[in-house]
């Protein structure tokens, strides 16, 4: 078992250690430099309109990344969220197509419940049966995606079949800001409180950083795991409705592969896949960085075919740099304790 020294550390004088402590700051400066660079090349980047656009387009990613963060903190992973988004989006869109008068809030609720049910299946398999999260969610990704195709029979639900009030969910504004931005902000605040100031939130960290001692101190591990996957599922279901409303179409392959982007945002934000660590601020910045990249690359006339490669490269670079810095810091700590 590797010993985590970062929490024991009281001295913060070394610059590298300081950097590691405030990793989010490093990410923040990287984003600032990136923005300045893009702005110099294309002045239409930092205009109010474009910034609002970027925020709207990043909101769904932020909401999903919050859920993925708590899954990763418990040493898990959820590869099924793209499929859950598609399934809940498709079912809700079909409901709206059948009865156009449905209340939009009801749609959001139904989507969330569908997602939460999907999440509960994963939670049961991981927490009760003890499957590895990657295997369980890989299999369920297939099953949910297959179900989406089955319920839709390969057909799309397109914009003309959707009621205005439904499309309004993701395109309407409140106080000048898109609804999506408000929803993302609310979730950030709720998660901040939940993770830092509630007992369950702290137990999530405890289960992830050391399962054995968490079990010894009386934390019901199975219950935490089940909860985490249910929350992730619920958020994916909600985002399914938002996604369909935003793009005004529901297809069988909606959000296919989006789980990778979400995981990438978390990893860029410094969430460790080995569990136990991850901060909300980091994840938020990670998601914003990816959102900026998606927006800036077309503005810089980078071919869309380069985007995948650039994204993959940045993810690998971020995890490797993170690992190297962490190693150095731990070595400094060890040296200091020895001396």
């Amino acid at each position, binding site marked *: 078992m590797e010993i985590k020294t970062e929490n024991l550390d009281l001295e913060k004088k070394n610059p590298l250690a300081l950097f590691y402590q405030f990793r989010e700051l490093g990410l923040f400066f990287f984003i600032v430099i990136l923005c300045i660079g893009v702005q110099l090349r294309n002045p239409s980047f930092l205009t109010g309109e474009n910034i609002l656009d970027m925020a709207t387009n990043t909101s769904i990613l932020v909401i999903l990344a919050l859920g993925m963060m708590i899954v990763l903190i418990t*040493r898990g992973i959820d590869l099924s969220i793209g499929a859950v988004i598609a399934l809940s989006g498709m079912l809700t869109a079909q409901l709206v197509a059948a009865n156009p008068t449905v209340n939009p809030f009801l749609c959001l609720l139904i989507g969330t419940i569908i997602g939460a049910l999907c999440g509960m299946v994963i939670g049961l398999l991981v927490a009760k*049966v003890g499957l590895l999260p990657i*295997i369980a969610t890989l299999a369920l990704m*297939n099953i949910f995606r297959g179900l989406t195709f089955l319920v839709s029979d390969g057909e799309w639900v397109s914009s003309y079949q959707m009621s205005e009030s439904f499309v309004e969910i993701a395109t309407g504004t409140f106080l000048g800001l898109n609804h999506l931005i408000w929803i993302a902000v609310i979730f950030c605040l709720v998660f901040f409180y939940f993770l830092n100031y509630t007992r369950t939130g702290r137990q999530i960290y405890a289960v992830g950083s050391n399962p054995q001692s968490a079990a010894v101190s009386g934390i019901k591990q199975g219950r935490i795991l089940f909860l985490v996957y249910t929350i992730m599922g619920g958020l994916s279901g909600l985002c399914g409705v938002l996604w369909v409303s935003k793009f005004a179409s529901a297809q069988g392959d909606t959000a296919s592969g989006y789980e990778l982007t979400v995981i990438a945002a978390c990893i860029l934000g410094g969430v460790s*896949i080995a569990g136990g660590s991850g901060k909300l601020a980091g994840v938020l910045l990670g998601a914003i960085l990816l959102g900026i990249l998606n927006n800036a690359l077309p503005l810089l006339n980078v*071919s869309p*075919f380069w985007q995948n490669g650039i994204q*993959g490269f940045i993810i690998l670079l971020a*995890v490797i740099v993170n690992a190297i810095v962490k190693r150095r810091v731990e070595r400094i700590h060890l040296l200091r304790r020895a001396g």
Partner: protein
Amino acid sequence: MEQKKQTYQPRTLETNLPFSWKRLFFQWEWMLLLILIAVLLLGSYVSPYFLNYPSLRDGTMVFLDKALIVFPMAMIMIMRDIDISVGSTVALSSVVMATLYTSAGLPMEVAIIACLATGAICGLINGLLIVKFKELSAVIVTLGTMILYRGIAYIILEDQAAGGFPEWFGFFGWGYVFGIPFLLIVFAALALLFGIVLHKTTFGRKVFAIGNNPTASRFSGIKVDKVKVIVFMLAGLLAAVTAIFLTSRMGSTRPNIATMYELDIIAMAALGGVSTAGGKGRVLGVVIAVFIIGYLQYGLGLINLPSQIFLIIVGALLILSVAIPKLGGMMKRK
């Protein structure tokens, strides 16, 4: 992931146990054989064109290409790792081969060698990153390279298709040797080779030892890092071989080929009895599992069932095959 599954009581390697009739009969492979027979019977029930020699023989060409990767994947899973970048590796090596032949005008033989080299390099990068940065799990490294490799394939070919290979290249995907598909012969040869390597050589012993207890195997003098890098390279190399067969059968290539292959391959290995917690698995079981999933896919295709049902079935099979041993263990403890 590694830490969670660590058990501290000594486990005997399966290959070390003395012979016993009881164990011979209570094996996962018998169960798999029964499932395979059930699949074949079901196939002959739903379609009159399913259960005869030419149909079963040519059916193998539909699914055996990806099955080539299942052997190194089994080794990787025995060592408690996972590789989800193999589908992207197939796409990248195929795109490199096609581009070198069509755009660069190199002879096809050179392009094939470049394809194999690309796959091996992709695997080497995976392996090196995993052993140099042990704190990143194999999941994260191969997730990153999965996006990266496919990204490079897109950079090379954009949304174009590349094709127009020489006629003899079609032999890989469509050729027969003595009335048997060439692909089937390659698969059988690889099964034999990997079976011998995994169960009869010291290298195979090392793979099992690493899966049972990585720390103990390092202390007993096994070069864990070296073994891991070799196995990941093998996965990349066989992904390139798959790319050759797949490209040959399709006649052209695109950057989006072989998406989600990793899932089918992991499902085949898990169904074949390779434990996801490491340390267990046999080539024979994996081979039977390949034919179960393959003939299921082929049979469903014959009766025109939508391929989405196949997605659901593979997912369900994967869950059942990993859940049944766990549930059995739970019963025993109670």
